């Protein structure tokens, strides 16, 4: 058995320990190393070509003035100085992005959780409802939906037509700095499908006995929700929160099509402004500096959420 080098992690199972010949063991390990790197080589090469090297390049460009046409010129911290102290549009974009993330992410997760709880039973037809609720998320990122959204919230759009029936005068949803960002937040909330499915999977994992025991103790409805459902779901909530937050910080297509950053830059999301700097104005250095600030902010927020998780995420202990 040990004559061939191509074993399957037999060291892990302790099979390798039976072998008394250390040479063949080393040979086997070397062959495993080789096979391992061969199998992951597509990703590894891609990681260096399309992630690692670009990141290094981007870090360098962040300290340069670079328009592609002429070679990059080192400017030190000038990009960051410009960004933080002399670019009001930059702060507009930061403000819009935070507003969006802090409104859209909690709303979307709350919706996802409520609907997941509604669907977490075995009534007939639940599958159809699940499909209906998930459908908007399937098409959510598409340009078609963004185009549609712009018309739904247009002055002659459906929303004004419907509120008109209730006697509410038409509103220029997309033109009013107060409402424009909310059309995008509603668009995000409308696509609660993925977190909903993840919550649904999480809900199904909660042992029924917990609810039965709670019922015996006289805890029902709201009390069960607060003391069983929520604590048992906290690992899933953490996961959803992190994923949604990250994608929230990078929102682009919807704003690009629906509002284009208008009115008065109230929907000029960070990724949108970065795109304009990079691919409209061809200020690659400035845009790279912006990208690194984004990366650091996303990493900080992710770390913050993970750090806080020990206080609120409940992990079941082994054999509990």
């Amino acid at each position, binding site marked *: 058995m040990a004559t061939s080098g*191509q*074993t399957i*992690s*037999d*060291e*892990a*199972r302790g099979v390798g320990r039976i072998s008394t010949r250390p040479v063949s063991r080393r040979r086997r390990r070397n062959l*495993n190393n080789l*096979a*391992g*790197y*061969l*199998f*992951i080589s*597509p*990703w*590894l090469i*891609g990681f260096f070509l*399309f992630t690692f090297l*670009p*990141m290094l*390049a*981007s870090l360098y*460009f962040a300290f340069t003035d670079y328009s*592609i046409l002429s070679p990059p010129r080192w400017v030190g911290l000038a990009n960051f100085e410009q960004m933080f102290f002399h670019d009001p549009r930059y702060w507009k974009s930061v403000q819009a992005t935070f507003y969006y993330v802090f409104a859209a992410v909690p709303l979307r997760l709350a919706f996802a959780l409520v609907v997941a709880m*509604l669907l977490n039973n075995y*009534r007939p*037809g639940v599958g159809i409802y699940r499909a209906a*609720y*998930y*459908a*908007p998320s*399937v*098409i959510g990122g*598409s*340009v*078609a*939906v963004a*185009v549609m*959204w712009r*018309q*739904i919230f247009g002055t002659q*759009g*459906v929303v004004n*037509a419907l509120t008109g029936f209730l006697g509410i005068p038409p509103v220029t949803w997309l033109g009013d700095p107060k409402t424009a960002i909310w059309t995008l937040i509603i668009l995000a909330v*409308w696509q609660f*499908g*993925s977190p909903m*499915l*993840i919550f649904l*999977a999480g809900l199904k994992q909660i042992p029924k006995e917990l609810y039965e025991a709670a019922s015996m103790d006289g805890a029902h409805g709201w009390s069960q929700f607060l003391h069983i459902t929520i604590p048992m779901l906290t690992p899933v909530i953490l996961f959803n929160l992190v994923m949604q937050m990250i994608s929230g*910080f*990078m929102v682009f297509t919807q704003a*690009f*099509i629906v509002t284009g950053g208008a009115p008065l830059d109230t929907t000029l999301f960070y990724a949108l402004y*970065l795109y304009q700097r990079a*691919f409209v104005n061809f200020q690659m250095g400035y*845009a790279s500096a912006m*990208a690194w600030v984004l990366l650091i902010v996303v*990493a900080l927020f992710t770390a913050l959420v993970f750090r806080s998780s020990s206080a609120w995420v409940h992990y079941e202990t082994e054999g509990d």
Partner: protein
Amino acid sequence: MAQATLSPTLAKQAHLRRERTRSLVYYVGVTLLAFIMVYPILWLFASSLKPSAEIWTTVSSLIPRTITWENYTNGWRGFGGISFTTFYMNSFIYAIVGTIGSVLSSAIVAYGFSRIRFFGRGFWFVCLLMTLMLPAQVTIIPQYIAFSKLQLLNTWWPLLLPKFFGGAFFIFMMMQFIRGIPKDLDEAAFIDGCGHAGIFFRIILPLIVPALITAAIFSFYWTWEDFLTPLVYMNKPNLYTVSLALRSFADPSAATDWGAVFAMSALSLIPVFILFVIFQRYLVEGISTSGLKG
């Protein structure tokens, strides 16, 4: 207590009635919500079938008074002398080639990470997970510069090449799936003389078909709906994907024929819906087991 034993049927009936009202309230509620959720989609399809004059006059109605396919024929003509035939061809090339490349490469990498113990595996796995959180904005600028220096703008290379190096999401998802396959199978194959390549192709690959399908659907969706990448690299209208074409087509400063815009928008969603209807089970399982974003 005594009363309950005296009339158990009465209590049962009361219970049943209560259950029935609860059921009714439940179904009315979820149906109403479902209607609100799909209303915009239905609206888009309804508007695409209305004659131009009717679209804005009966804007909230979901039933066209007269059904016309004119919007579709008008819209298909496209703009600048390029019809949607070209845009659909481009989108299909991008989505299909991209999907094949990323699913196959991801499967190979997933096998390596989950079934071979090699030096540095933990480290590279952490790198893989980190790339999941990396904003595309950090890498797209240097990538764009590199591709432009190589004179590869307005070609398929920048869009398709990166797809052949595995997608972190798919690798992660397939690893979860491979973990569920008993190792006894690998060992039996090994005793029969299979190497890693043999085990991968003959044992693992056939067993992870559901995961491959799930990954393929997501990959198709994401490339079909991808907007940023073609926007950055494709500047010639004859290379536009449907997403890009729709954006130019629906430019509020230029578009006047809203019927045609709605028709082409609705049409672009149809491949997505077809896959959704056929493969819904895989999608739901894929998201539930690995937490993929939709």
